[in-house]
């Protein structure tokens, strides 16, 4: 909408500007810059991304078709032999891989709805008039979890959820709930990791929704407030449409983040106890750098990459419709 407006404006001005910049006017409807100009501005970034993004991916792709365990001497002596799709078949028939993928999905389904619900509540509270000072401080405080180093979140989580001297047990005690060894049992560890993720990322979701709420034109919101006293009706009929693009963004970004979620979980539980918090990124890291089977780890990484691309393609399709 806006881009087409500026574009036609560009075109109009180009008619006069084109005369002074000779050489740019050969093509009809040319918007005032050389054909290769965008290229020169983009080239450095694209080349850098190719080097740091595409090269390792190609390396991983090549490795995924080889027997490539760097601790097995035979593999080295054989020159890391080509094994076709063996690694992929291995991964796809590896129950642990599927379990970790399933666990990651469960983690997403547990954490993201809570973050969205809390995020909307927080955004509504921050948007509502009154208590200007307190609202400003609260909004600024949301930045704190976002800026916290993920690994440090894991360290703090281990202290807070400690069985003996953790403050989580103390607070639950105030509510009359018996204390437990959070990180020592599978359910507890899963919940503890989820709580830390909810702490860190709910503010992000809230800020996105807050931006959405502030996009509602003031006069429309005022008129609606005169019409109805119900906050729910206001949210449902006036504000919700402005929250939808943000919601899509949250779904995309959080699914990519959770597929990559490593630092916090690694520090807090190392995937344990047992495999209770063995999210897929933790598992892949272990196969690659504890078992040193780079062939299998590469195959896993490639499969995850494909999954991420498929997911984001799906989201982008929805997403672009929202914007246009």
């Amino acid at each position, binding site marked *: 909408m806006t881009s087409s407006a500026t574009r036609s404006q560009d075109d109009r001005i180009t008619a006069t500007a084109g005369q002074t910049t000779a050489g740019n006017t050969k093509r009809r409807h040319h918007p005032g810059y050389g054909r290769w100009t965008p290229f020169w501005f983009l080239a450095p970034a694209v080349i850098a991304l190719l080097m740091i993004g595409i090269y390792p991916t190609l390396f991983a792709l090549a490795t995924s078709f080889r027997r490539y365990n760097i601790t097995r001497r035979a593999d080295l002596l054989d020159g890391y032999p080509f094994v076709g799709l063996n690694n992929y078949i291995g991964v796809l028939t590896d129950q642990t891989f599927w379990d970790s993928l399933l666990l990651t999905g469960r983690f997403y389904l547990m954490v993201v709805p809570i973050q969205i619900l809390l995020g909307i509540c927080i955004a509504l509270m921050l948007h*509502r008039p009154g208590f200007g000072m307190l609202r400003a401080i609260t909004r600024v405080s949301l930045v704190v979890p976002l*800026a916290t180093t993920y690994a440090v979140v894991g360290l703090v989580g281990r202290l807070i959820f400690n069985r003996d001297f953790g*403050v989580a047990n103390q607070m639950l005690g105030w509510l009359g709930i018996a204390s437990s060894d959070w990180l020592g049992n599978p359910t507890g560890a899963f919940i503890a990791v989820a709580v830390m993720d909810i702490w860190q990322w709910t503010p992000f979701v809230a800020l996105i929704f807050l931006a959405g709420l502030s996009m509602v034109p003031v006069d429309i919101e005022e008129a609606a407030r005169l019409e109805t006293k119900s906050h729910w009706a206001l949210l449902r009929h006036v504000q919700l449409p402005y929250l939808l693009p943000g919601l899509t963004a949250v779904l995309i970004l959080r699914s990519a983040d959770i597929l990559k979620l490593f630092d916090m979980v690694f520090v807090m539980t190392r995937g344990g106890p047992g495999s209770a918090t063995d999210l897929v990124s933790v598992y892949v890291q272990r196969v690659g750098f504890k078992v040193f089977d780079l062939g299998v780890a590469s195959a896993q990484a490639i499969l995850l990459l494909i999954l991420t691309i498929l997911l984001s393609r799906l989201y982008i399709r929805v997403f672009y419709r929202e914007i246009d």
Partner: protein
Amino acid sequence: MGGRSVGRALHALGLLLVLGFAVFPSYWMVTSSLKEQTDLLASPPVWFFRPTLANYLDIFADQRVTTAVLNSMIVSTATTVLAVLLGTPAAYALARFEFRGKKDLWFWFISNRMISPIRSIPPDLEQSARLEGANQFDIFWRIYLPLGAPGVAVSAIFAFIFSWNELLYALVLITSQGLKTAPVVATNFMSGYELPWGKIMATGTIIVLPVTVFALVVSRHMVRGLTMGATK
């Protein structure tokens, strides 16, 4: 009338709850870093205690920690400079030019976050500069970069925070002890039987403090930057 004041009280209570929720873990980390070991291991945990700086003196005497913080500084600064140098021209191109394949490139770039501020600069400026004979690079350098500075600053800070907070690559790729970054060293404390919680929390505080201050200072822009990157 009564309903309204109940509503206001709930609003204030809710805001206070959110505030507490947002800062509590950080508060707990900082206070723990000021505790002696006996206070740290008290069960149930103590909220009031005699603060000590002993943990900080310990970690600053520990060369592993100081070196790691320095390494993190170097890595993050270099990353940020590189990201801005490469990202700003690309953001300019994406914001101002039309070309084939643009949509595909769009999602590649974190410099997304800069595009909206650049968009908000009126294109007339560019046109009049061109009439005065400025070339494309002049236009970018003299007009867009200064006017887009807030957006660039926000993106630079994002780049810094992301790079500073990064653990996985550093953990996997760096093997030499002297080159380890701060998150890696903090993680390394988590082994052994009796964990030195005071030192761990002091290191955590030292790691988190610079980026938090950074982020708080620009929080108004940060909200904008975050959401623009996400919803555009």
